[in-house]
């Protein structure tokens, strides 16, 4: 059988051209101002030698005369120094759940997650930020690290599109590996459904640090938010095969919704207490509206 050349997957399968055009104008924001290695376009609190003017302070003997603002001296006849913000580049880590549970849903949560990842990766790469994408199920499966610039877009698309969602999810192991491989500072975005039987506390705590913003995006399918089930069912967990026998009634569904709301609220509370940002998304929603509107509102993007 002649070996066929595998067809290259294109980014346009995930993002359409119009969306990409809109994404061109966006940039990733960090709430905490962090330090990077290169002189990029980020503001940091460190007032250093860079080109962007930030503030004035009175001249004290011994300061560098190069930074005196002569326009103010001309007006006020007092010496003031210009202060500059030191801009640093951002490392963006995307941690995407590709366990079996993400493959469920109508529309599939995995597709939503991949599109969202593609959009955020696009914005990062286009603005010359350092991007690292890790796909995890039980531990990190695939990683693309140290990507910078548009050249890496096809690679990102290839990785996203060729990965299938299966496997058991071990979130803690994944976060542990991701945290150790994280260098420098930047933004960590976790995209998952967060329905982990082992819990997410310990895992997420690993990702929280002084040098990283944490964004938690929970993607749920409409069937998980508003289940339309009836009768006597045996529900089988797709990941561990665990079975739950239920008899659907109005009371049961009420309790389910209550539990779901409580779970999401608990995750939200956890994030808020630790300075992370929690975003809940429905896989039936459009990625565009999430990215263009909501993520700008929570100041992930600008």
């Amino acid at each position, binding site marked *: 059988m002649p070996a066929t050349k595998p067809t290259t997957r294109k980014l346009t399968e995930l993002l359409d051209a119009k969306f990409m055009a809109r994404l061109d104008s966006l940039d990733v924001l960090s709430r905490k101002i962090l330090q990077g290695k290169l002189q990029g376009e980020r503001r940091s609190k460190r007032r250093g030698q860079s080109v962007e003017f930030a503030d004035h302070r009175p001249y004290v003997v011994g300061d560098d005369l190069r930074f005196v603002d002569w326009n103010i001296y001309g007006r006020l006849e007092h010496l003031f120094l210009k202060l500059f913000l030191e801009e640093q580049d951002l490392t963006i880590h995307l941690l995407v759940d590709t366990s079996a549970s*993400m493959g469920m849903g109508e529309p599939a949560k995995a597709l939503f997650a991949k599109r969202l990842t593609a959009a955020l990766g696009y914005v990062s790469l286009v603005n010359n930020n350092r991007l690292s994408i890790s796909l995890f199920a039980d531990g990190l499966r695939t990683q693309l690290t140290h990507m910078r610039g548009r050249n890496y877009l096809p690679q990102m698309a290839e990785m996203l599109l060729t990965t299938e969602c299966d496997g058991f999810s071990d979130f803690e192991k994944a976060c542990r590996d991701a945290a150790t491989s994280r260098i420098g500072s930047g933004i960590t975005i976790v995209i998952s459904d967060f329905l982990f039987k082992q819990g997410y506390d310990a895992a997420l705590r690993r990702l929280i640090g002084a040098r990283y913003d944490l964004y938690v995006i929970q993607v749920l399918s409409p069937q998980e938010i508003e289940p339309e089930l009836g009768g006597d*069912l*045996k529900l089988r967990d797709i990941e561990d095969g665990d079975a739950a*026998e239920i008899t*659907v009634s109005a*009371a049961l569904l009420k309790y*389910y919704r209550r*539990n779901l709301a409580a779970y999401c609220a608990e995750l939200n509370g956890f994030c808020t207490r630790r300075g992370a940002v929690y975003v809940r998304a429905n896989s039936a929603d459009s990625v565009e509206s999430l990215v263009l509107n909501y993520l700008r509102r929570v100041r992930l993007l600008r």
Partner: protein
Amino acid sequence: MQWLTPLVGLYAAAVAIPLLLVLYFLKLKRHEMLVSSTLLWKRAVQDLQVNAPFQKLRRNLLLLLQLLALIAMLLALAGPMMALDKGPGQRYVILIDRSASMNATDVAPSRLAEARKQAKIFVESLRGGAAVSLRDRADHAMVIAFDRHAKVMCNFTSDRRQLAAAIDAIEAGDGASQLGEAVTVARAFAQPAGGEADASSAEARAKLVLFSDGRIRDVETIVLAQDELAFHRIGQAQDNVAITAMKARRSYEQPEQVEVFASLANYGAEAVTRDVQLGVNGNVRAVRSVTVPACQTDADSATPVPGKVAVNFSLAHNGEGVLEVRQLTADALTCDDAAWGVLEPPKRLSVLLVTEGNPVLESALRACPIERLDPCTPAGFEAMDRALFSMQNAYDVIVLDNHAPARLPRCRYLAFGAVPSGLDVNSPRELESQMIVDWRARHPVLQHVNLTNLFAAQTRMLELPRDADVLAEFNESPALAVLHRRGSTFLLAGFDVLQSNWPFEPSFVLFCYNALNFLATQAGGGEQHELSVAEPIALESVSAKTVTVTCPDASEVEVRPDPGGSARFPATYRVGVYGVDIPDEPQRFYAVNLLDAEESDIAPRQEISLSNLTVAAETQAIERANVPLWPVLVLAALVLACAEWLAYNLKARI
């Protein structure tokens, strides 16, 4: 409490109860579905279980209810019985008139069919016993069909189907209607057996429900309580023309001539003209048109008197045959439109005279128009073959002159002097000088006979049995008597003719003439060929094994004679000619006629006048009174069960 079939119940319980429990605890078949995570579902189920402790109770309640239902069914299988004092509710006696007047067709198809229909509606409206009540009191009814006699069609029962079947089994008849026997029978059945009659009989008195046209003969003799009888009148019209009398006779002098007398009655309000037809053996011999006057109401007693006209026919018929007088226009009642008579072939008598020598008697007998007279001595009479006698009926009359043989064949006898033995007649002594004191001048034997001067020097005293017909009396003893014994007819004279002055009286010859005529009409030892309805056909000296009787509706019935040679056919319920076939003998005919002026008057009565009260006819027609509602309720229960199933299915999905 009794258990009819306890073992069945036990076995069924041993099988069914464990089965129910096993079924209950078997796992439910569940539909399998993949979900992304059962984390939240398990929490929801736990919440549900924790927050609804009533769930457990409800599950157990269902089990309990099902167990109870199963136990109830098993108990029912075991057949429990409880002895309760369960008396019947109201009791009814349904009396249905099936006399001739009920065959009138003024109410389609006939009054009897209408009566049956109304009776069946009445039966249907009886209150049946409730199925789920312990002290149910079902209405009981019995069915009696009556004409002259009462026939119980069905005894007291609350089974409506049985009653309806009994009502349907009532056949039409042509008899007269009399209520006395029916009421007596009804009262006899209505009495509860045993000593509980006092407590319950007062309230459980049966009600009589009568379906008739009211033409009942003996109502004045019946005593009933108030409200005991409900009379439902059947029938409307009164117009009817009927043959109420018919007689066919051969003249004694000219036996070839037949005289037929018939009388027509008109019960309608207008005079009508009818054609009356006479037929012999199916051939029409004469037709006459007569006008019958209208029915008049008697001014004094307010009873309607029908208009009558008499019709005479005279024809020559030399042989035997069946006469039919028929009124040709069909009217409401057909069974009185024709009358039949049976003609004997003209016959001159053969007389055997057993005497030592009595020229007076012999010459008197020879003066009568007889075929032959054979004198015979007593010794010669004894020597005759008796068997030959009975078979051939060689002699019509045997005259015994002072001869009392021990055994006599069946025949008609005129006995003077000695009384034959075996007749239950005692003659203890002789009497002297007897004069006739009284005689029955209207009896056929003594018609035109004047016995005033009859004097007997010597006579036997006669002690006669009660059924003997005394015709003339001496001062101390009966002189002449008619007696029927063992199929023979005896005309007894206790005195010897030669011991009296009778031969010198002109009445002697007349007496002999009348006696022979009379004895000749007692043909067949008392056999009657013209009968009224329900009178049995009695056959004597039948030596065959079976006799076939052909009814007017062409059906045939086999009758077996008893060892004495007698056979009876009592089922002459319809008018017409009945043919009797005895093997090796020519066919005999019997005519059954209605000939009843009362029954032919078909105008239904508005009220029945009993001896102590008058019962008016019910004005309301019988309609269905008591309608059971349980079918409606069962249907409603079924509909509710379906609705509940539907609601459960819809609700469970939510």
